[in-house]
């Protein structure tokens, strides 16, 4: 199965600033997925990132707040912009390993906004 390196693992940010999260995959993948996991809640899909096209955002998430970069088939970034305390959460990237391996997830980025 694919191996994903995600960084940073955690960060504390001031409100109004932005944080960019990076995910590097050890193999080429068509789609990469970005999730948010708020305390005590399930994983929520933010957007799907395809190489060479605009990311597809889920309801409730907008590009201005969560811009995504997908410059090649092994790398993607998610930026969380204009941070507020409500953005404090764990953010995860993921790729689809198919029926045998399921989804592979990065180790997550724990964001705290103060």
């Amino acid at each position, binding site marked *: 199965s694919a191996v994903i390196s995600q960084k940073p693992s955690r960060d504390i940010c001031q409100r109004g600033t932005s944080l960019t999260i990076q995910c590097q995959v050890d193999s080429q993948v068509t789609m990469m997925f970005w999730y948010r996991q708020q305390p005590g809640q*399930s994983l929520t*899909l933010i957007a799907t990132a395809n190489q060479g096209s605009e990311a597809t955002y889920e309801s409730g998430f907008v590009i201005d707040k969560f811009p995504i970069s997908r410059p090649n088939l092994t790398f993607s970034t998610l930026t969380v912009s204009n941070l507020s305390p409500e953005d404090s959460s764990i953010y*995860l990237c993921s790729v689809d390993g198919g029926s045998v391996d*399921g989804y592979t997830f990065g*180790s*997550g980025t724990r964001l705290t906004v103060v």
Partner: protein
Amino acid sequence: EDQVTQSPEALRLQEGESSSLNCSYTVSGLRGLFWYRQDPGKGPEFLFTLYSAGEEKEKERLKATLTKKESFLHITAPKPEDSATYLCAVQAATSSGTYKYIFGTGTRLKVLA
């Protein structure tokens, strides 16, 4: 509305005390049901995929089963290292021909030595 519900929210077991976790779902066009394990500070780790009612998968002390409305994750003679949050997710077809992944909120399992 598509929904995935896991119960219990939390479970404490003594080492060796077998039990089951439940994942009930209401989705149209189920393509698969997935179980994941998540340790603190880490991303979810894939355990099983189930596709049709009656299907079963096993891995060490874990066994997953699937019916038309729910899935169970049976833990036999658990050990402290089985302590984690167990997540259930369903993959469902959408009206546009794509698919979506819906996660439950998980069951936090603590196994005491």
